[in-house]
């Protein structure tokens, strides 16, 4: 390789290594996203092989997309968000949670409750509901299982939204909850879940449970 080619190969190799590190991706996954063989991409990352011009353009393009739309960047967005937000995978497990979710300031007696992030991450959404015995989204009383059934993770639904009072015992939360499917470059569709609390509404439940006021499923546009 010429000196210029060596420098270009080193630059692409460094970019690939950074992408893998920043977005927690394997060589196989990067290769899949680039439509290349893992062995070839590994050679590029190690600087062992000259990178064709078209491949350099593809890698730079992928880097730009990952910076804003990788699963890792969506996790970062939700973690840094001001509001009550979580990111949920297709298996309905929590992938990320915002700081506001970890603090409940409205517990009885003016107490402030805090929860460790670990009490959410990796947990199934249904485990965080006071009960599954409610018509949360459809009428199955199956908690969040309906999200997959209605097509949230395959692009058929633009938004799932419900208004509910959730009484967890130590505290209650009343508000409108939204699930927005968002597309990640490396992990397909995940759900961006937001809660808009209605602080002015008084709780009606005296025991742990869920009251759903209304729910709606907004289909995706063609």
């Amino acid at each position: 390789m010429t000196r210029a080619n060596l420098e270009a190969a080193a630059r692409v190799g460094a970019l690939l290594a950074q992408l893998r590190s920043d977005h927690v991706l394997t060589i196989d996954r990067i290769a899949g996203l680039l439509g290349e063989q893992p062995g070839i991409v590994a050679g590029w990352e190690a600087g062992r092989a000259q990178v064709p011009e078209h491949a350099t353009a593809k890698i730079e393009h992928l880097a730009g997309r990952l910076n804003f739309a990788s699963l890792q960047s969506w996790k970062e967005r939700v973690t840094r968000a001001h509001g009550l937000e979580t990111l949920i995978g297709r298996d309905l497990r929590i992938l990320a949670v915002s700081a506001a979710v970890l603090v409940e300031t409205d517990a009885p007696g003016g107490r402030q409750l805090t929860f460790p992030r670990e009490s959410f991450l990796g947990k199934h959404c249904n485990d965080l509901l006071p009960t599954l015995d409610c018509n949360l989204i459809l009428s199955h009383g199956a908690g969040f299982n309906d999200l997959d059934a209605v097509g949230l993770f395959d692009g058929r639904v633009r938004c799932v939204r419900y208004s509910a009072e959730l009484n967890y015992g130590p505290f209650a939360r009343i508000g409108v909850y939204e699930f927005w499917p968002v597309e990640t470059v490396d992990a397909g569709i995940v759900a961006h879940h937001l809660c808009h609390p209605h602080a002015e509404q008084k709780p009606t439940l005296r025991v742990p449970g869920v009251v759903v006021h209304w729910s709606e499923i907004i289909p995706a546009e063609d």
Partner: protein
Amino acid sequence: MKANDEWPELIARYRARHRLTQAAFADSINVTQQTVSRWESGKQTPDPVAQQLLRSVMGLTALSSKSAWQQRVNLAWGTEALFEKGWRFLAVSPKLQQASGKPDDDVIGKVLFDLPAFKSEAPMLGKLPIFDGAIRVVKARADLYLFGNNFSADIDMWPVLTCGDEIILHIVAYHSPLAKVESGFTGVRLRDFYAIMTDGRIVSSGNTAAAV
């Protein structure tokens, strides 16, 4: 996706990004150069089968198009807005419309800093490289006095990459009813402002000019 009016731009951007001539792109998807030319000039819309092929080749899906993001903000329950390069309004949520007292048609396409209330923030916000891909998020607290309502809000500004490789800006505001704005203030004032750059640097209001 309302892609029919987006295809010319999407195809042209894709070709430019991959340095493909119309003929080379046409060859890669087994159509003629004339067909690509007609799609790109808007004279012809790709048929559904061709659209599916184009989505597959170009990595497009319905959820990450500009129109899908506009739909999201138009439907959002919260206080949200969407901007394109030049700080032109693409969408405002119903709650923001209600708070501003302005109907949707009044602001879509307008430049934020042309609105009198936001003129004072143009020197700071306008020069941030938000639409160039250099910023991960901008966070701020805003004091607002608009149309007789005064309140504070925590604001997150998230650049979003569309499937057409265009960066648009998704702004979400969270009202802080406890933090009242002092009487006599009118307009919009950002404070406690900072930006997280894509390279990890944090730029705060104190050193904006020097860092960006």
